[in-house]
């Protein structure tokens, strides 16, 4: 019994260690989020609160962007939730591989895009009875990286403003497109390439007409329907 308990914590720590690639990726992005949230008029404590409660990079940046653009809060909430709808496929996909069903509420909270990707690829290489603890370790590493970097970014806003050249901040501004692109690349295949191209075109049209903030929700609903109309047959395919 004692050995089993110790074994679980060993795999928890292994999970924290295995989260290192996510930690590297999250740090500059969360740092940028902290800086951006101060620029959007929020306090450093509130920036930390956003990261602790949401723990969803894309929707956090969308939240800031839409508040800055003057979108209403209900519409902002709707967009952020629409953006996270994709998370519903992670649970069913991962539950096929996850043999131990303990800690599900806790594990669900930390199931981000990157955590899902890492877990999906590696979880079966761990013994059944410690899979949950290993996954929890991954999530704790990712969560700590995200929240701590957010707070550092928010608190160091003045230092960055006064002591770092503007080129540094401009360079960090690319972390968001880089993250979206890095998430998008592994998803590209012969089927999804069409819908990504369609999304680009529709978003450019929205930008051209000054309706940029409406584009994520519209493409999220319209594109799968348009894709079905033009390409047919996807509905019955196991994508």
């Amino acid at each position: 019994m004692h050995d089993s308990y110790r074994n679980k914590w060993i795999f928890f720590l292994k999970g924290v260690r295995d989260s290192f690639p996510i930690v590297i990726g999250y740090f500059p992005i969360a740092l940028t989020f902290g800086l951006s949230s101060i620029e959007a008029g929020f306090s450093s404590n509130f920036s930390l609160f956003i990261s602790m409660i949401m723990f969803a990079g894309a929707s956090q940046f969308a939240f800031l962007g839409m508040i800055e653009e003057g979108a209403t809060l209900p519409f902002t909430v709707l967009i952020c939730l629409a953006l996270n709808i994709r998370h519903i496929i992670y649970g069913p996909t991962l539950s096929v591989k996850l043999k131990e069903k303990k800690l599900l509420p806790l594990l669900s909270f930390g199931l981000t895009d990157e955590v899902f990707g890492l877990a999906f690829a590696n979880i079966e290489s761990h013994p059944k009875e410690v899979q949950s603890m290993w996954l929890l370790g991954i999530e704790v590493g990712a969560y700590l990286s995200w929240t701590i970097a957010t707070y550092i970014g928010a608190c160091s806003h003045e230092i960055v403003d006064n002591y770092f050249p503007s080129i540094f901040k401009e360079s960090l501004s690319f972390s968001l497109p880089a993250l979206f692109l890095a998430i998008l690349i592994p998803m590209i295949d012969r089927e999804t390439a069409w819908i990504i191209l369609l999304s680009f075109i529709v978003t450019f049209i929205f930008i051209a007409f000054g309706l940029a903030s409406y584009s994520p929700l519209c493409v999220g609903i319209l594109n799968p329907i348009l894709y079905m109309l033009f390409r047919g047959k996807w509905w019955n395919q196991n994508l």
Partner: protein
Amino acid sequence: MESKSIIACLIIGLGTFIFRFIPFLFGEKMSNSFFRGLLPFFKLSGISIIASLFILSLNLNINLIFSLYAIKVILSCLAVIFCSIIFKNPGISVLIGIFVFFVTNLVI
């Protein structure tokens, strides 16, 4: 502004948790139900939203499309694509993308 934003954050946080937790909880049952038929829709919806957010995050407008900024963005995006294919690690891809963008800002 923050008091209203706190409520908005809590709703988004709760909604996101539900999106992650409920399908996880009923994962095996869902795989045999009608809901499975909707999974491709949500997958395509998610990809569409990420693609749209990628374009929006570039802060493009008609004037910027034909400027030096576009060249910097294209070079940095190519670096991210290249690293994603080679390393298959989003963290490294993002870091190298930022570095290339920093270098292009210095050079161009």
